[in-house]
């Protein structure tokens, strides 16, 4: 049957199981938007800025484990997507971005709103396409979705000239893709797995470092079985948080620049590291030359290019985490590692890393803990970037699988609100809290408009310290307290919320925290709380830039009060 290019795109999206599209229309994508009402199963959510569309698709994809879709017009619409696409690229998130392009006869003429978006996004997409005729649309969309979600997931951009959206072509949705240059390795090599098992079985001081690959692969059970059989402490990267329950006796939480001090010490002392679906990012390893000096490293990852990229690896295993762990666990003998685990527990007692200091003022750590308490740890937490993100990672105990959504690789301030919107749209039955900083929040604050229009019931907690707080902390520690360009005057966020038609509360005192969170939870719809926190509160522990993991700065002792480790069921 003949269809217009626009109809072919919509038909293809329906066949890919797409339910939601985040986007903004415009001249070069008008024909596609014009066809949308014929496909009521495709819900379109009009965002306020295309960056919001890409982040929302990103959040949606991470939370639902489906492919997120965003759309924009040519030129500025497309370039506004760029930050969001880059964010998805660095965190391996499957999104498909569809952009309008000027009509074919205008390409290369610097036409109105023409930009070479496939050129611009070349280094930040897994693959991209400039469609050259309507007849190839179905094949390209099929390939695009396949590439986005398989292997190491990532963003795919499809640029569709305006005249192709109008042109007619025969619609036939291919059942298979033909990509001779793309064959992800799923099965790990049996010899390598055997070697790894031998090393693990002989290890005295093993640790697992689990990353987002575990979540992407859905290898929660396999990871747990491996850890429990061989009694191996489980440490996660920032994006690996919630791949393993943090209340588990073998959980030693997050490593890295703002990881737990005891965790970083464990890495430093380990003799075998089993790195699973993680990529040795510098925020996780700190100074690589001082990383895990005594350890043999086993690295399991689906992307061969990650092996040996940042850290020397003794036993690489390329493959899908779930498949590899499934094969590996059959060769693992049970162990106890009593002394090693005792050592870690002692370090945790001596360096609890999540103490909260005594303060009259409102502390951000307390806010996060209260959100944890009131939601009973069942919420999905979406963060901005900066101090808010680190406090959210440290002071919420993640037991629910895939319950922390955060911008890791790119560290995109402004990710929080639109991503939380995408998460809530994808998981309407879950409680979704956006924990953001006042600086980060203001970068995409316009999405309050989308949230209000679509009544997306996101609960927003702004940790408002009037600074670009993480940078201010660096200035305090490393730049002689010269607070250049970090003091930030914000608007009255509650009034802003009101102006968008959303309820909000300002909280200045600790005793108001719980009632405010409860009120937000009871309210059927989006709700904003502006927590006015201690302006110069720092994130501890911290590994200074350039230092090794074990050279960790902890909170000044005299200031802290002991806070018992959260015991969660």
């Amino acid at each position, binding site marked *: 049957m003949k269809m217009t290019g626009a109809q072919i795109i919509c038909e293809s999206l329906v066949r890919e199981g797409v339910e939601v599209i985040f986007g903004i229309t415009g001249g070069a994508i008008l024909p596609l938007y014009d066809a949308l009402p014929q496909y009521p199963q495709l819900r379109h959510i009009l965002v306020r800025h295309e960056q919001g569309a890409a982040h929302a698709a990103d959040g949606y994809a991470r939370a639902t484990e489906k492919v997120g879709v965003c759309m924009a017009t040519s030129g500025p619409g497309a370039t506004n997507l760029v930050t969001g696409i880059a964010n998805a690229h660095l965190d391996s998130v499957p999104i498909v971005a569809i952009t309008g392009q000027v009509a074919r006869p205008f390409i290369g003429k610097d036409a109105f709103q023409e930009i070479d978006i496939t050129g611009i996004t*070349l280094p930040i997409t897994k693959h991209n396409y400039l469609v050259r005729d309507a007849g190839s649309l179905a094949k390209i969309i099929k390939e695009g979705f396949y*590439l986005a979600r398989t292997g190491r997931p990532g963003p795919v951009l499809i640029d569709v000239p305006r005249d192709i959206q109008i042109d007619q072509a025969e619609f036939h949705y291919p059942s298979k893709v033909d990509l001779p240059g793309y064959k992800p390795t799923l*099965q790990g*090599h049996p010899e390598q797995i055997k070697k790894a098992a031998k090393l693990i079985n002989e290890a005295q001081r093993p640790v697992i470092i689990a990353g987002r690959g575990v979540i992407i692969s859905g290898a929660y059970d396999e990871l747990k079985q491996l850890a429990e059989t061989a009694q191996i402490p489980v440490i996660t990267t920032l994006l690996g948080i919630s791949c393993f329950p943090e209340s588990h006796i073998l959980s030693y939480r997050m490593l890295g620049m703002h990881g737990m001090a005891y965790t970083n010490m464990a890495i430093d002392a380990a003799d075998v590291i089993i790195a699973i679906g993680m990529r040795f990012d510098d925020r996780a390893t700190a100074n690589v030359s001082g990383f895990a000096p005594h350890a043999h490293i086993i690295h399991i990852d689906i992307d*061969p290019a990650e092996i*040996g990229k940042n850290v020397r690896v003794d036993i690489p295993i390329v493959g899908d985490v779930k498949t590899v762990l499934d094969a590996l666990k059959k060769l693992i003998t049970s162990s106890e590692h009593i002394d090693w685990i005792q050592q870690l527990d002692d370090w945790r007692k001596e360096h609890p890393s999540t103490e909260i200091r005594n303060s009259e003022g409102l502390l951000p750590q307390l806010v996060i803990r209260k959100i944890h308490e009131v939601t009973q740890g069942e919420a999905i937490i979406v963060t901005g970037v900066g101090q808010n993100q680190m406090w959210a990672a440290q002071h919420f105990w993640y037991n629910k699988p895939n319950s922390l959504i955060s911008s890791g690789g790119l560290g995109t301030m402004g990710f929080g609100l639109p991503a939380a919107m995408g998460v809530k749209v994808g998981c309407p039955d879950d409680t979704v809290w956006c924990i953001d900083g006042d600086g980060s929040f203001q970068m995409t604050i316009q999405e309050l408009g989308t949230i209000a229009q679509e009544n997306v019931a996101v609960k927003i907690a702004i940790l408002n310290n009037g600074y670009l707080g993480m940078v201010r902390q660096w200035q305090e520690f490393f730049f002689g307290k010269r607070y250049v360009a970090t003091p930030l005057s914000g608007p009255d966020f509650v009034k802003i919320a009101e102006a968008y038609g959303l309820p909000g509360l300002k909280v200045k005192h600790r005793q108001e925290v719980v009632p405010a969170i409860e009120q937000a939870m009871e309210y059927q719809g989006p709700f904003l709380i502006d927590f006015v926190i201690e302006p110069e509160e720092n994130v501890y522990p911290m590994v200074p830039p350039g230092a090794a993991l074990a050279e960790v700065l902890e909170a000044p002792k005299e200031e802290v009060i002991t806070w018992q480790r959260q015991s969660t069921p």
Partner: protein
Amino acid sequence: MATAKHTLVALVENKPGVLNRMASLFRQRDFNIESIAVGHSEQPHLSRMTIVVDGTTTMVEQVRKQLDKVIDVVKVSDITGDDIIARELALIKVKATASTRSEIMQVVDIFRANIVDVASDSVTVEVTGDEEKIDSLFNLLRGFGIKEIARTGRIAMTRGGSSPLRVEKKSSNTRAKRQKT
């Protein structure tokens, strides 16, 4: 670790923008290309590239893996350690007068190169060989005065019947094998 020149050969889909994707990758990862040569392969929809990069073994292995990730790259292989035939072609336009022309022709003969064009004040020499041979001829001809030189960059192939770029049906298995080394 010491750097050395490595020869990579690749089969890539003959599609618009593929060269751009590969060049972009080199720039993005800060790898230095010594030369790159592209042409048709034995399969009509595939082009063959020979890329020479200067770097440590670890670095070049990273280049190879990153190139392999490009969707349009069907296969890429580092053949540096293999027994290979590597050739380059150069056209060299040399200043020539009636008195120097025969001397130039002698040099050209020794190198088994050819004179492909003669003008009143110049001759153009075509030479094929490895980089060293071309460099030596170039150095000898320099005395006469070089007007212009064009070089193709290296193309290479392994000796013997097998090909490192043979595309196998089950290439996921070959990748699994390769990771062992």
